[in-house]
């Protein structure tokens, strides 16, 4: 399906209506104007007719001076402005000087109640004329008085008017079109705002769609928020189920393991071996389950400095013989784009490992590039232990490998660290530290630090 722009459709539709409405307006205006002109012409002609009637009634036998109508148009031959007085036999008694060289066409219309009839005709020169004729009945005879006016002049005026109307309405049309384009943009601004708000949620800058929206799209914003909320709830529920399952399975496994570990019985040995396998599977698949639940989380960010400080405090208690020093570069907080508990899991395992291997000192540092966020954050964990060779480092980063069975804790926890780092698109590298031990370099996505 072709993607259509609402703004463009709005503009096109409003433009089409605009053109139609303006065209109809121009037509109606011109029509009204021409009707008004026609009426005014009739009134002029009726006035002249009345004058002629008055003059012919006061004179005797229709003997009239040729210039009895003052209007000079009646004197110009072929002007379209004529008058004529005829007797009942149709003989012209008198006529205007303009009628010299031509004759008026015969009227065919019927007289009305006032003995007046009117018609638009063509004179001998092909000029359109408006004719009014009145029949006057005298005691012994009757007179026909006809006055005509030039219709072409009127048509010319109407044409001029039409031209001007088109110019003016065209200008108005262009202004309205520009306005409707602006209005379309303006009306769609909240949609742009909504899309930016949703983007902010995805970026992790906001937990929900923020801001006031017009009534038309406010329900959409609300639905997005509801969706985010229910998503979060589903994930929380999945996680708590995973946690319950873990608790439920791990306690009986612990019992089985302890019960069989102390015995030399053959069955006990089988139980112990199988229990170990089950524990491994349980923890592997619980990890996977919680990782799967995690990938759907959008729009979380957490204060990396606060997480590391908390972990430093915890390590001081778990490893009192090891001195953990934390350094936070810059004064502004550095935000990790993701779940706080995930960062805790990643950094916790790295620092815990460093403490287990260290002789006496572990250094943790946090920095961001660029410092105002949006790029990546780097966490360095160094210890002064025995260190690793490159091959050992590679081996450690593979799943389920323990370097030293004597170090407490089940595995190095680096498998889950690696999976989490991969999910967040970060990197983890192990080097030999200048402090003689291992240097773990962790790089993770950072969020912008605009809101909390």
């Amino acid at each position, binding site marked *: 399906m072709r993607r259509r722009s609402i703004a463009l459709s709005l503009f096109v539709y409003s433009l089409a209506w605009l053109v139609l409405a303006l065209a109809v307006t121009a037509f109606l205006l011109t029509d009204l104007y021409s009707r008004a002109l026609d009426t005014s012409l009739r009134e002029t002609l009726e006035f002249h007719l009345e004058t002629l009637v008055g003059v012919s009634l006061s004179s005797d036998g229709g003997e009239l001076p040729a210039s009895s109508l003052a209007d000079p148009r009646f004197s110009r031959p072929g002007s379209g402005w004529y008058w004529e007085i005829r007797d009942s036999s149709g003989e012209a008694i008198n006529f205007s000087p303009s009628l010299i060289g031509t004759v008026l066409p015969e009227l065919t219309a019927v007289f009305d109640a006032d003995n007046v009839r009117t018609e638009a005709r063509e004179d001998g020169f092909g000029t359109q004329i408006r004719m009014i004729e009145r029949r006057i009945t005298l005691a012994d005879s009757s007179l026909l008085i006809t006055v005509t006016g030039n219709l072409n002049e009127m048509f010319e005026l109407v044409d001029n008017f039409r031209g001007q109307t088109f110019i003016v309405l065209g200008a108005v049309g262009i202004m309205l079109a520009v306005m409707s384009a602006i209005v379309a943009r303006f009306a769609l601004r909240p949609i742009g705002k909504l899309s930016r708000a949703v983007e902010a949620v995805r970026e992790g800058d906001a937990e929900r769609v923020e801001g006031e929206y017009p009534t038309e799209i406010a329900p959409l914003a609300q639905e997005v928020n509801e969706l985010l909320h229910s998503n979060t709830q589903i994930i929380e529920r999945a996680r708590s189920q995973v946690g319950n399952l873990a608790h439920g399975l*791990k306690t009986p*496994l612990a019992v089985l393991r302890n019960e069989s570990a102390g015995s030399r019985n053959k069955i006990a040995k089988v139980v112990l071996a199988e229990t170990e396998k089950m524990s491994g599977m349980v923890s592997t698949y619980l990890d996977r389950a919680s990782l799967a639940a995690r990938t759907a989380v959008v729009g979380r960010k957490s204060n990396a400095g606060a997480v590391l400080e908390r972990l430093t405090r915890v390590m001081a208690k778990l490893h009192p013989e090891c001195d953990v020093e934390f350094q936070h570069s810059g004064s502004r907080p550095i935000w990790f784009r993701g779940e706080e508990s995930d960062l805790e899991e990643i950094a916790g395992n790295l620092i*815990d490992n460093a403490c287990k291997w260290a002789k006496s000192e572990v250094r943790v540092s946090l920095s961001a590039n660029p410092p105002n966020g949006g790029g990546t954050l780097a966490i360095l964990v160094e210890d002064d232990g025995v260190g690793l060779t490159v091959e050992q480092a590679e081996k450690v980063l593979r799943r389920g490998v323990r370097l030293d069975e004597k170090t407490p804790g089940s595995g190095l926890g680096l498998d889950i660290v690696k999976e989490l780092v991969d999910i967040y698109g970060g990197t983890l590298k192990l080097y030999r530290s200048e402090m003689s031990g291992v240097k773990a370099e962790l790089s993770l996505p950072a969020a912008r630090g605009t809101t909390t």
Partner: protein
Amino acid sequence: MRILVVEDDQNLNRQIKDALTEEGYAVDVAFDGEEGHFLGETEPYDAVVLDIGLPQMDGLSVLEAWRRDGHAMPVLLLTARDRWSDKVQGIDAGADDYVAKPFHMEEILARLRALVRRAAGHASNEIIAGSVRLDVRGGKVTCDGKAIKLTSHEFRLLSYMMHHKGKVISRTELTEHLYDQDFDRDSNTIEVFVGRLRKKLPEDCIQTIRGLGYQVSED
């Protein structure tokens, strides 16, 4: 050393209790949060093994309540939830260490030894008083490099006194810390065991402070 084990799973509770008893600890057990909380409030324990998922009152609430009331004994948390966020929560609630299920019993024993030792202010696994050395990890006592054979009761007694060397310890305190709550405390067993210990150790190792109790000298 007297330890409280709070764990709702009957089997696991028994296993931990057996392992600790075998290691020479006096052990009390509780099967739910309220009972555990009550025991921790009223009895002087040298350490507590506390499960987080408990009926009646969860482990973290029990721990927080103890800490609020000023009970500072070391607490080893036991839980199936082994994410760092859970550990941080547990440590912040006042726990001293953390073991995730399923665990090896040796791990619990090792962590407990370290907790008890650290709580008494000893940095290393070996506590020395004069010519007598106590290896906390191995449960061995030597005098001038020569191994001394002790019964488990004698070892418990010496271990407690050496953990708190330099301090005068009353008979009541010894009884409270060496025997679980079901023990008949009216007997003179403490005196009997001190007498036996004195015969196996150098003469000046355990001194009687008249009217107050016993003391193992600092060096």
